[in-house]
């Protein structure tokens, strides 16, 4: 048998890079779809690939699965170099953005296909297929054809088909994009649960940052073919390493400023900048980290006087637009029953912690 199963226990200890991607590149002519991707995934972790449409998420996934040859770079799983290994010997489960079910097979046959290729015995196949189908809540649909199922049901078959082979690495290309909000939540938990229970190392491609932040151990933010930052949700949110990450994850105020002698001027304030930074910089502050009163503990903060120019009540939050010294701030406050929203024209004093102020060298 050609297939070499990679079982959980026989692999190198958890920790450094079960999946290790080094300098992965993909070029289409002059166009660089994936630019020098480096990635290390410990065993059993779920990492999200998050980024705008066309940034190279699917292409990266397809290279890891072996469906498109990399222009250069290496892919190593559990110490085994898979760079030139055929896709059918990589033992990876891939859930396609377009499901890619076998239209001529029943749901049960679709799910059983990978086991058949692995020459798993009949009794075991039957049992694992039954389990996988019930896991994605499709019991009773075993003999249906894919065309007889809804988009969301097809997506779940694709998931069951990839999971049933217990792949060493599970690659999910927007597997929940066609589900309604409720089922999406359920499947999200289900995937997370299965992934943790079976200790599968998985990459989860998504457009939805809430999905990425809430369900994944780590998030890889991609932009224009490049990995901008790989980190835990908290790291990405609190320590963004680039203006792109800061503005892509969560909402943010962005101000252009000029750094001189270790400080940048913003709304009459002098914002300290990292050592050695000069010229144009971008200053970012999260709208909900701006408060209307000074922090009680006296932590070092910036403060500026301004006037409310717009006030929006959005149920759970209040959004103010405040103009201070010519700079426009978006400010978000949680609502409370006893509080009345500030009216347009009200004078306010904005405060935010120094540690909540991000300064980036502006992109050339």
């Amino acid at each position, binding site marked *: 048998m050609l*297939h070499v199963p990679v079982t959980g226990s026989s692999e190198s200890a958890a920790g450094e890079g079960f999946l290790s991607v080094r300098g992965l590149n993909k070029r289409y002519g002059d166009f660089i779809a994936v630019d020098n991707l480096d990635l290390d995934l410990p065993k059993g972790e779920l990492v999200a690939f998050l980024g705008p449409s066309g940034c190279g998420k699917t292409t990266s996934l397809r290279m890891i699965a072996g469906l498109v040859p990399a222009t250069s770079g290496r892919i190593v799983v559990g110490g085994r170099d898979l760079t030139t290994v055929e896709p*059918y010997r*990589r033992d990876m489960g891939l859930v396609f953005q377009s499901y890619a*079910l076998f239209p001529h097979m029943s749901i049960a046959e679709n799910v059983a296909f990978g086991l058949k290729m692995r020459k798993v015995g009949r009794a075991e196949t039957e049992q694992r297929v039954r389990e996988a189908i019930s896991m994605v809540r499709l019991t009773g649909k075993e003999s249906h054809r894919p065309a007889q199922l809804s988009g969301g049901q097809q997506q779940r078959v694709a998931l069951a088909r990839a999971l049933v082979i217990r792949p060493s690495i599970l690659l999910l290309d927007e597997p929940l994009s066609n589900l309604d909000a409720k089922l999406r939540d359920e499947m999200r938990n289900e995937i997370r649960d299965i992934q943790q229970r079976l200790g599968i190392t998985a990459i989860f491609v998504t457009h939805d940052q809430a999905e990425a932040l809430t369900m994944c151990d780590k998030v890889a933010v991609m932009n224009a073919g490049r990995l901008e930052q790989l980190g835990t949700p908290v790291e990405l949110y609190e320590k963004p390493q680039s203006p792109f990450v800061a503005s892509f994850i969560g909402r943010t105020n962005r101000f252009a400023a000029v750094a001189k002698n270790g400080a940048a001027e913003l709304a009459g304030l002098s914002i300290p900048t990292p050592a050695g930074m000069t010229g144009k910089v971008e200053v970012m502050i999260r709208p909900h980290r701006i408060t209307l009163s000074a922090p009680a503990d006296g932590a070092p903060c910036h403060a500026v006087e301004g006037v409310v120019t717009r006030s929006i009540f959005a149920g759970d939050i209040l959004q103010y637009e405040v103009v201070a010294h010519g700079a426009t701030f978006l400010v978000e406050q949680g609502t409370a029953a006893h509080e009345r929203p500030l009216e347009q024209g009200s004078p306010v004093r904005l405060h935010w912690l120094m540690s909540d102020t991000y300064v980036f060298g502006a992109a050339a």
Partner: protein
Amino acid sequence: MTAIAPTLEAAPARRVKIPLAVILLIPITLINLIGFVAPVINLLSFSFREVQATGAMTGGSSIASWVAIVTDPFYIELLVNSILTSLLIVVLTLVCSFPIALLLHRTTGFARTVLLFVVITPLLTSAVVRTYGWIALLLDGGVINSLLSLAGLPTLKLIFNSTGVVIGLTEILMPYMILSLLAGFRRLDPRVEEAALTLGANPFQTFWRIIVPLTLPGVALGSLLCFVLAVSSFITPKLLGGGRVFLLATEIYDQAMVTLNWPLASTLAIMILIVFGGALFLYLRALRAIA
């Protein structure tokens, strides 16, 4: 508005509503009645006419033609031979056309246009011309045998036997097969093949378990079409068979134009129709099995 509403509502009740589909089917029904059903009825009646050795029909009726084709070993062999030869041609056409159709399906842009043009061009040339082309190639002193003897190999008997007919018809029918296959390849999605690969199927398994099943509707359609065309082809067997290959279509021509036995020719023509009916029945059965 209230004034015209009652008339609008009443109108459909008074008129008999004919479904649009029925109206649209009228022209083709008329054409079929005149161009197909009437001649077939005519043929059927001819097949029961009595005929003299001179070819003159007496006006009396007879079942001699029907008795001949079900009892005379020559006609039984003719029928079996026609069907088997046509099946062989269908299989060869399919084997030769499948890779081309698959390549065509996967090619995009300008290359596809060129390839499609190459496939369709032979259809723009008459089968007679193409058959003469094959004669030039297959003749004892023709291109192929000249090359063989140049290479010091024994020459082959490639023409005026069923080999020649099979070679010629296979090539002539390939465009029809390729186009039918291509029409049936629409279900073939490259992502589906990739899914099979990631699930552990090697390219060989992917071909047999995914590609072939998904292309079966095209295969069935192409096979039916080419079988019908092969059984009814006349010029190519006539020219490449050199009068030594006996098939239904050529025999009908001989009976009608040479022997002047119109009743027997009519009977054989009805026989072809029955064969086609059988092929169509098998096709529909196959479609239901693979859908």
